[in-house]
């Protein structure tokens, strides 16, 4: 168990960073941002790997491996689907060479 004060420090700072990084997001990017954040919590895979690596009996191992499968789906699928959304946003140049209003929020 970590030292409670260290723990609290880490949590409080993370909360502020979490608030800060998304506070000015344009509504166009709400869906990809949600999807990206969704992929990040797939990092529970690290926890699933640890419990699977320490599982002593077949039952516990089975449950842990299910957790590994689910967490991988969250992590890998999350990043892939976010990338697909963003691929459609960015890459292509405008079909018409008309001066746009400029990108906002950037």
């Amino acid at each position, binding site marked *: 168990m970590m030292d409670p004060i260290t723990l609290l420090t*880490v949590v409080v700072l993370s909360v502020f960073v979490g608030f800060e990084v998304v506070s000015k997001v344009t509504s166009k990017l*709400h869906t990809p941002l949600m999807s990206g954040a969704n992929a*990040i919590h797939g990092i*529970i895979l*690290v926890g699933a790997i640890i419990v699977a690596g320490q599982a002593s009996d077949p039952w516990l191992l089975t*449950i*842990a491996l299910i957790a590994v499968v689910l967490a991988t789906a969250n*992590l890998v699928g999350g990043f892939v689907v976010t990338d697909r959304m963003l691929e459609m946003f960015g890459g292509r140049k405008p079909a018409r060479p008309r001066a746009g209003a400029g990108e906002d929020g950037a």
Partner: protein
Amino acid sequence: MSVLGPGWTSLFYLVAAVCFILALKGLSSPRTARRGNAIGAAGALVAVVTVFLSAKLENIPLILGAIAVGSALAVPVARRVHMTQMPQLVALFNGVGGGAAALVAVLELGHSEDPWVRLAVVFTMLVGAVSFAGSAVTVGKLQELISTRPLLFPGMPVVMGAVVFGAVTAAGFVVATGSTGWAVALLVLGLAAGLLLVLPVGGADVPIVISLLNAFTGLAVAASGIVLGNVLLLVAGTLVGASGTILTKVMASAMGRGVTGIMFGAFRGGSTAGSTAQSDRPVRSASPEDVAVQLGYAQRVVIVPGYGLAVAQGQHTVAELATALAARGVEVVFAIHPVAGRMPGHMNVLLAEANVPYEALKELEEANPEFPNTDIALVVGANDVVNPAAKSTPGAPIYGMPILEVAQAGQVVFLKRSMRPGFAGIENELLFDPKTTLLFGDAKDSLTRVLGAVKAL
């Protein structure tokens, strides 16, 4: 393997955590979004390699096999899913993440002696289970496997109260005794709570709930970091919990709603359901050819896409129409309401898929001042987001929601399936305005016919 000592392990976890922060930061801006996502994925890779090199692990071949299975299940779906079904997929991935967190916590219960750690265990289990079951309901609603209307039964608040009471009791026993039996009971009650929480939510509010459950899963992962003594899980989970909460609030306010109203509105009777009554007041309807003439000889056309366009999968046709009009010298832009479609920003993704240039997409604040200089506002499958009742009728469910002020354009053309009101269940006075014409039918069919007529002009 224990190749890496604790110092190096912490250092690599720190690298991963920084990557996640940069990922969220990058995703907040259109230019850096894709790179941000790639940085997040790189951070995840660093973390997973680190855990293999640092922790003392048995069963490594089986774990690698499970990772392969998970990837093999998720990647093809993520690659191939239609963009209209993408919200369901995000909800699904969120749910399985919550489920994984709950399972990890159950398995760690045996190693947890400290009551504080056990408290983190029960928190992870409960929140993870709520997120799993709640996400399953949102997927069902979005796929229309279950009704998109708020589902309520008599006595639901009492049942919900009993479930919450039972869950708290079970959680107390788990913390006190570490009993596996109580832990299983807690999981079941958590699943029930997730179902009861999301079933009463109306279809239009489901996106907000997905975002909220996303934040929940983040918190469950953060608590699992305490359970496992892993700082990376704690930081990453807290980041997602915090940013997800903000994002949920921002989305809800873009819809002119509060989060508590969405979650508990149906319990209080202020249902989010719409009426399906049809009005029989006279309207002016037009043929596709009439609409084509109006559009083809206009100077400036603003297209307002909505849910109906997404449902009809008409994004490619509407893009083609815009190109055909532009070829005739008509200036065409799309005005995107923040909550048009099934998820905030969903319409942008759909139109981007159909090759509509980013510059042609205008947000609400940009689009509204331009409507007075617009000849025709073409509203495709949208209703509530252009309903003037949001400004003029204080009692209306959408009162206070910012709308696209299409009424200020010279002419308004609605492509609509029927006279049924939008999801908010209120009539749109604009439909009866003398400068409004309506073309009834499926959005894609109507667009195809208008497109054909424009090309024939």
